[in-house]
């Protein structure tokens, strides 16, 4: 171990390494590499946390894991493997979420430096806030494909993770998903929602049946179809997809008829939708073409998963995956649900086949299972080399932090291709100062929330805005007059969930105080009334979006893969930010 050999490091660094307690958040691609570098460098006291278990697709880069470890805890196996490099080092592994209440500010205060090796924005935001609250230096990193970045986050010295807005998460309006898909991704999102409707946890935001409230369909609201349905079932109350599926014993043929024939006919009855759109064509089970429209399949040049299925094949796969998922579900305890996982064969088959059948119906190009997996699973390609390079840079920066040389901790970028000066590992010219308007690290925590108080419910406020939008974990919310709208105490404000903000007395100009005890974080939310539109977003948060005028960097939002798409997303890859591509900031860099 380097620090145990005199003369390898300068004295101060040697001592710092020997005596510092450090925390690695994430034991994926970057985390494994960081852990190796730490142990080999001679750190004696390391803690590492990861919620995840090992999957076979991790093994091409998460080199502390081997085939026999598949299914085991990443943190624990990483610890064992790293101990084989140096059996005397003290490593504590947590198989847990870093967002759990067990890891509060006092937990974080114990470390000299924290190194993030995370794969999602949610956890990154959280650790950012914890380190700010504990005033511990945080080294943040991420990779996506050939690219990567490393940056120091230190309270009042540098930008924090939330100082600049990240590219917004891509969401798709419910009407597009349910009524008028026009791109493959719309069908894929619909299929994932369908999976949850049929087998997963029920979420009313993931309805897959035709949306009669679609403003584009105003005027005709599918009355004929509604009537037909009422007659059919002798009852005007529409049953949920789940109830209906249970009643039909998940019979694939019946499911198919409802999803790809009856519901499509219903959509067709909403005539206004199709005035300027190509109307969908209902499919009849057993009467589908056994060919791929407009596509000749080369057979050898591609992987099995890269071939595009004919519609007939899709129907077959739909039927068999349906049956398999149904029996998977039967084996669960009552009340338990399946969770969609791109690495579960049946779950993936189901989504791929449904997405392609729906795409065919709407005249949208079909995709291979391989490509659908990328899109549905938000896969950001990951390789060993980028992770190794970025993890090396992380630990070099940690050396500087421990020596107190924060001025040497400028951000560093690993580029896909060298820049015009042939620089591939590119350091930023200087530390970037905090954004004085940041709603997380500036003294004044305030955002404006543009939202329709007439329609937004307290539940939506909690889930969509406070948790997803503002990255809180367990928020409490009170109004300026002291009314408790939301409490993080289990069950205390459940009655408020269905109420709209306006029913809670919130109007244009109201100020809500949100408080997250775990994150030690308070935020004022100024309400700006804005009416909901068909394709418009549910809400918009205006906060620290403007960097100070004259600040040196110009951000160029990257095109590319976006964050967790709209819904329950399993972000996969250890190392890369689910939003890595967008968070990798391309700046004019000095060399």
């Amino acid at each position, binding site marked *: *171990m*380097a620090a145990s*050999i*005199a*003369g*390898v490091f*300068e004295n101060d660094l040697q001592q710092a390494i020997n005596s510092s307690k450090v925390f690695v958040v994430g034991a994926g691609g970057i985390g494994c*590499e960081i852990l*190796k*570098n730490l142990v*080999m*460098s001679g750190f004696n006291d390391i803690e590492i946390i990861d919620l995840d278990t090992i999957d*076979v*697709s991790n*093994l*091409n*880069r998460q*080199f502390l894991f*081997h085939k026999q470890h598949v299914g085991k805890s990443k943190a624990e196996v990483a610890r064992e493997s790293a101990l*084989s*490099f*140096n059996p005397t080092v003290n490593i504590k592994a947590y198989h847990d979420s870093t967002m759990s209440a067990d890891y509060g500010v006092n937990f974080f205060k114990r470390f000299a430096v924290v190194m993030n090796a995370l794969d999602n924005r949610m956890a990154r935001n959280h650790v950012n806030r914890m380190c700010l609250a504990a005033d511990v230096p945080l080294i943040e990193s991420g990779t996506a*494909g*050939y690219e990567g970045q490393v940056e120091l986050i230190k309270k009042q010295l540098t930008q924090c993770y939330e100082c600049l807005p990240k590219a917004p998460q891509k969401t798709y309006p419910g009407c597009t998903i349910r009524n008028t898909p026009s791109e493959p991704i719309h069908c894929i999102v619909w299929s994932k929602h369908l999976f949850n409707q049929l087998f997963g946890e029920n979420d009313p935001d993931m309805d897959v049946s035709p949306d009669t409230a679609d403003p584009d369909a105003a005027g005709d609201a599918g009355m004929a179809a509604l009537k037909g349905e009422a007659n059919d079932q002798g009852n005007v109350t529409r049953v949920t997809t789940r109830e209906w599926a249970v009643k039909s014993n998940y019979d694939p043929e019946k499911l198919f008829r409802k999803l790809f024939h009856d519901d499509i006919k219903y959509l067709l009855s909403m005539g206004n939708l199709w005035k300027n759109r190509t109307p969908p064509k209902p499919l009849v089970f057993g009467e589908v073409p056994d060919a791929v429209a407009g596509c000749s399949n080369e057979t*050898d*040049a591609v*992987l*099995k998963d*890269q071939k595009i299925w004919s519609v007939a094949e899709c129907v077959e796969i739909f039927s068999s995956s349906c049956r398999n998922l149904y029996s998977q579900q039967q084996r669960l305890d009552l009340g338990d649900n399946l969770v969609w996982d791109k690495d579960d064969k049946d779950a993936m088959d189901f989504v791929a086949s449904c997405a392609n059948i729906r795409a065919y119906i709407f005249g949208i190009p079909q995709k291979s299972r*391989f490509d659908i997996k*990328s899109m549905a699973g938000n*896969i950001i*390609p*990951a*390789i*060993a*080399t*980028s*992770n*190794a*390079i970025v993890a*090396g*840079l*992380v*630990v*070099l*920066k940690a050396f500087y932090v421990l020596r107190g040389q924060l001025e*040497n901790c*400028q951000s*560093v970028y690993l580029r896909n*291709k*060298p820049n015009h000066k*042939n*620089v*591939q*590992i*590119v*350091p930023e010219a200087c530390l970037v100062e905090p954004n004085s308007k940041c709603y997380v690290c500036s003294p004044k925590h305030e955002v404006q929330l543009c939202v329709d108080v007439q329609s937004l419910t307290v539940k939506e406020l909690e889930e969509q805005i406070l948790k997803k939008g503002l990255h809180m974990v367990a928020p409490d919310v009170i109004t300026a007059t002291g009314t408790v709208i939301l409490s993080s105490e289990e069950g205390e404000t459940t009655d408020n969930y269905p109420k709209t903000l306006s029913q809670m007395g919130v109007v244009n100009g109201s100020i809500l105080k949100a408080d997250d005890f775990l994150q030690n974080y308070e935020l004022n939310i100024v309400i700006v009334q804005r009416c909901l539109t068909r394709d418009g977003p549910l809400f918009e948060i205006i906060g620290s979006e403007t960097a100070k005028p004259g600040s040196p960097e110009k951000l160029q939002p990257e095109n590319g893969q976006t964050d967790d798409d709209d819904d329950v997303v399993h972000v996969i*890859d250890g190392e890369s930010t689910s939003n890595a591509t967008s968070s990798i900031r391309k700046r004019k860099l000095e*060399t």
Partner: protein
Amino acid sequence: MGEMASVDITEDEAQLYDRQIRLWGLESQKRLRKARVLVIGARGFGAEVCKNIILAGVKSVTIMDHGVVDEQDFCSQFLVPRSEIGKNRAEASLERAQELNPMVEITADKEKIDDKPDSFFGNFDVVCATECTTAQFLHLDNVCRENNIKFFCGDVYGFFGYIFLDLQIQEFMEEVTTITNTHEPTGEPLAKKRKTEKTVQNTKGTETYVPLQDALDVDWTSESYAKRLKRMDPSYFVMKALLKFCDKKGRKPSPSEREKDIESLKEFVKEELTKQKIREDFVPELLLKDVFAEISPVCAIMGGITAQEIIKTVSQKERPHNNIFFFNPLKCIGYSACFGV
């Protein structure tokens, strides 16, 4: 793109390599799977190169090292268990190297390169050499040139690292992105309405390389090179001094001789700078202070860069560096520059 690799990828491989196939494509993976790589020198840097190319899924890796495991290996050589001190370094690395990927053929070779006939190297598509003398590097490069083998050499000294590439003539496909700005003819403010269109095209490219000898024999008093000095990072001269140090002393700088070795190194730098008529302070002394052992994070950086260059070369996808890549730890910068052309 030359002949198509004909080997088929099995389902197991598709699963294991899923994430990288999504990045570099199936064809690259097939080419990787045919590549036979020789890694000479298995300390920390060599171990990192091995790890990355084994994970990537080349056909075979031969780890060659005649040295024995010593304490310094444990600064970064994670393939060697601590119990193997005193044993041959290549053999001691074998088991863990194999665990990284059972689908790659891995062999250990404990002979010295000087004892190998030139024909030995013909068994490989890529040779990556570290821990050699300048004379050995030059000889290897010549042998590789004659046999059309892609040659890499380099080393890590403490926090500093470099690699040299001689790929002779390298053909490759690369994605070239062109960004065009289009303005919408509306009255809206320009900043809001500017649209950029990205077009990505696959283009064929070629790079031509010079032998190592040429890259080391640069005459800095010549007009064109003297001009370059103005804007140049001094890493080249650090590399030269370190090579000279090893050639003269038969070892790398040693942590136990820290102060003495720093002084010798300064002398070698000074000698070279004087010879080339360059001012003495061109190389900051700070850059010569942390050159001891092979530091794990720097091995990771240099091993990552080197392996990625090997992957680019073998898969003939993307333009490899031409011809020396440096990591300068003072600025935390990694760049390539072309010497001797």
